[in-house]
């Protein structure tokens, strides 16, 4: 078993710096980077727990829709599920991929992946994990009627079969490196085959049956979801320190911040800074940790006609934008300006190659003169550009206002269209909802440490290639088939360069994980893999 244990010394150092951080004001936490942008101390872990706890209460940003892995592709769902259902591979807090329920993954031919299932693993009900369970779980993604949310990773799959008692073979239509990596996310989560036949799987009445360190206990719809320690968990290194974890669903930010400050709730992960972030940072009952993340703040292009369909116009707007201002004003100093969509945390291989390619790109500081010149070259368009923003979100509104002001300084007319939060999701899935919208904001994230995971959205015909951007289609196909990392890195950096120059999606800021924990508790994973890794296993008494 490959396991990257954190050496005691490192953990201690982290603990010490974490303590020091508590006393510092938010401003002191940030060193000033280039162009006045904040340079943040981003972590992957928090100080280790010193003892066990009977119960920890944790808040989710909203109530999960389900705990069925195939429909768990969002913050609240995965935060819970990550502690219950394990995947074939495991995404570590340091963004590595290591064996999970599969002891090893072999790749005998470019279109075959063979997974050897770990021996001696049991579901919570005591039945042993077999290849049949694994094949059944993965095959659920291929049944259109079940409506998987992970379809992007299964488009290349031809068949998934148990080829031995402890062996599963996946045959692909074409070579695909992302398929295997996705097995480290909830896409590769394994549910008992027998249990998965239940019609209400994943609902408050149906629950779920997995192998993870915590087991499903109860879900009182609208109120709370409880999970309990699995005392028979196979991986003794990740045996939970807390017996019971109760999740609440306080969606109202002010109420959530109050509940955290009063200590009624022990912790929460935020994906956007809440309006009361300052109160949390100054709280005497707990502290905020910023974690490394795969999430980024971006303006998704959706225009097929009009000025925003012209790469030069997009480039001009992108060049003129003051990303450091967005970071300071909108994200209260917690986000780092980005010049590419996929940030440094995605560089799971060939780091040097990616670093070099990143440094060669134009910096994220504004260049108004060049932007104006580009607009003149584009024929100084006079038509209005419409940006869709999510209603009742300060982050959306403030960023849109900054972009609007930037556009006005350049001579671009920008209009803002507010869309209610519950309908905002339609923009992603329904072309009709996107009519008349040239661009809209998103907190997008990839799931695996490979920039290709992000750029693959620009495949021709992909449902998320909203403006039919076609320049990198062939390169993406080649890169997905490139199992050799050097070759893949070369292809991916080429894709990145084109995408960055053409701005089909505009990179804005990298969004860290914002973790708040009460002083009483510590040990939670601070980085983005909390969505797929049993982040609460280390959670215990401070």
């Amino acid at each position: 078993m490959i396991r990257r244990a954190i050496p005691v010394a490192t953990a201690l150092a982290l603990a010490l710096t974490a303590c020091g951080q508590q006393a510092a004001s938010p401003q002191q936490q940030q060193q000033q980077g280039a162009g006045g942008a904040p340079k943040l101390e981003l972590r992957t872990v928090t100080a280790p727990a010193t003892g066990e706890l009977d119960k920890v209460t944790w808040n989710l940003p909203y109530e999960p829709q389900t705990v069925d892995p195939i429909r768990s592709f969002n913050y609240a769902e995965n935060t819970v599920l990550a502690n219950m259902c394990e995947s074939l591979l495991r995404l570590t807090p340091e963004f590595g991929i290591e064996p999970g329920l599969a002891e090893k993954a072999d790749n005998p031919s470019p279109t075959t992946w063979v997974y050897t299932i770990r021996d001696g693993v049991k579901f919570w009900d005591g039945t042993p994990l077999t290849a049949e369970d694994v094949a059944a779980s993965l095959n659920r993604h291929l049944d259109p009627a079940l409506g998987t949310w992970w379809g992007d990773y299964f488009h290349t799959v031809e068949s998934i079969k148990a080829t031995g008692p402890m062996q599963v073979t996946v045959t692909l239509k074409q070579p695909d490196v992302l398929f295997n990596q996705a097995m480290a996310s909830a896409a590769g989560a394994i549910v008992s085959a027998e249990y998965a036949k239940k019609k209400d799987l994943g609902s408050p009445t149906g629950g779920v049956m997995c192998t993870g360190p915590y087991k499903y206990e109860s879900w009182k719809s609208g109120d709370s979801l409880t999970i309990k320690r699995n005392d028979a968990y196979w991986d003794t290194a990740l045996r939970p320190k807390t017996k019971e974890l109760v999740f609440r669903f306080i969606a109202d930010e002010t109420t959530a911040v109050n509940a955290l400050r009063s200590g009624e709730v022990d912790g929460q992960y935020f994906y956007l800074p809440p309006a009361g972030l300052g109160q949390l940072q100054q709280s005497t009952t707990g502290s905020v940790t910023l974690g490394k993340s795969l999430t980024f703040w971006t303006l998704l292009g959706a225009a097929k006609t009009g000025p925003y369909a012209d790469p030069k116009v997009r480039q001009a707007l992108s060049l003129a934008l003051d990303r450091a201002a967005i970071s300071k004003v909108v994200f209260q100093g917690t986000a780092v300006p980005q010049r590419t969509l996929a940030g440094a945390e995605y560089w799971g291989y060939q780091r040097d190659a990616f670093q070099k390619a990143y440094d060669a790109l134009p910096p994220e500081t504004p260049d108004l003169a060049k932007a104006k010149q580009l607009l003149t070259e584009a024929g100084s368009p006079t038509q209005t550009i419409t940006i869709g923003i999510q209603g009742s979100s300060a982050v959306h509104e403030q960023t849109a206002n900054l972009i609007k002001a930037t556009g006005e300084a350049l001579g671009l007319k920008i209009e803002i269209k507010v869309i209610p939060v519950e309908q905002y999701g339609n923009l992603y899935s329904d072309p009709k909802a996107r009519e008349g919208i040239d661009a809209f904001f998103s907190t997008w994230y990839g799931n695996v440490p490979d920039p290709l995971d992000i750029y693959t959205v620009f495949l021709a015909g992909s449902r998320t290639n909203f403006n039919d951007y076609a320049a990198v289609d062939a390169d993406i196909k080649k890169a997905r088939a490139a199992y050799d990392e050097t070759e893949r890195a070369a292809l991916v950096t080429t894709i990145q360069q084109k995408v960055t120059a053409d701005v089909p999606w505009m990179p804005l800021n990298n969004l860290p994980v914002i973790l708040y924990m009460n002083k009483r508790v510590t040990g939670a994973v601070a980085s983005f893999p909390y969505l797929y890794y049993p982040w609460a296993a280390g959670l215990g008494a401070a």
Partner: protein
Amino acid sequence: MRFLAKRLAGLIVVLLVASFLVYGLLYLVPGGPMAFLLGNRSGTPEQVAAIRAQYHLDDPFLLRYAAWLRDAVTGDFGTSLVYRQDVSALMASRATTTAFLVVYATLLIVAGGVAMGLLAGLRGGKADGAVSLISSVFLATPPFVIGVILVIVFALGLGWFPVFGPGNGFGDRIHHLTLPAITLSLASAAFLARITRASVSEELGREHVETARSRGLAEGHIVRRHVLRNAAIPVVTVVGLNVAGLIAGSVVVESIFALDGLGSLFVRAILQRDFAIVQAVVLVLVTAFVLINLVVDLCYSALDPRLSRQ
């Protein structure tokens, strides 16, 4: 008996019309539940087709409405599209929270409003001025402001009450729902105080009270038998109207205090086009409205038998 039968028939007609209107209006609004059924990022055309067929999203409006109605008559309110769970199960615990909150708030409104109104009406002078001032402040402050202030003072500051949640068990529920119930009741209590004060003063000046006084009857007897009884009719009307309004007003309070009530479920379901939930909640709300009106009518007849003889 005939009175009750007539009211029940009326209730069924109102329910039918309301459910049809809501079902139809939801159809007219753009956007569908697909985003919630398939997530934001994936979904092949085959998948979309399979899901649409599974949930009958392509059936004509009248067919879907008829199918829903058929099931509803048998007590089956269908399955939530978004949560893929029985609507009745989703509503059960939430209805308890909302009912608890509304009853609690009603008690506060009646006790507080009537007490303040009587004080102002019977005592007059400084008491009247004070009640009038307090009720103006309560009437003018929106519930969300009151809620936030109560949380800051009594939950975060003094630590007397919890910040959120509905609680478990009777005592714990009372503890948890006190701040929400106060938030919900202040404006209505203030309004009721004004109505009570006005009708008490009016009754005090009426001829039969003067007559009773001149006959030398005890003041307490006069107030109980001649003033309160007659003043109660407008008070009951206002209480009835307010309680019906509380059900709608609870939405704001439920969100401030993170309560799992019907109101928050309803709003979310409308925005997500979760037809089955919207339907069921509308039925519950309309039924509650009609039943409250019925209770008000019954109170009228108890207070003044002449009213039911018409």
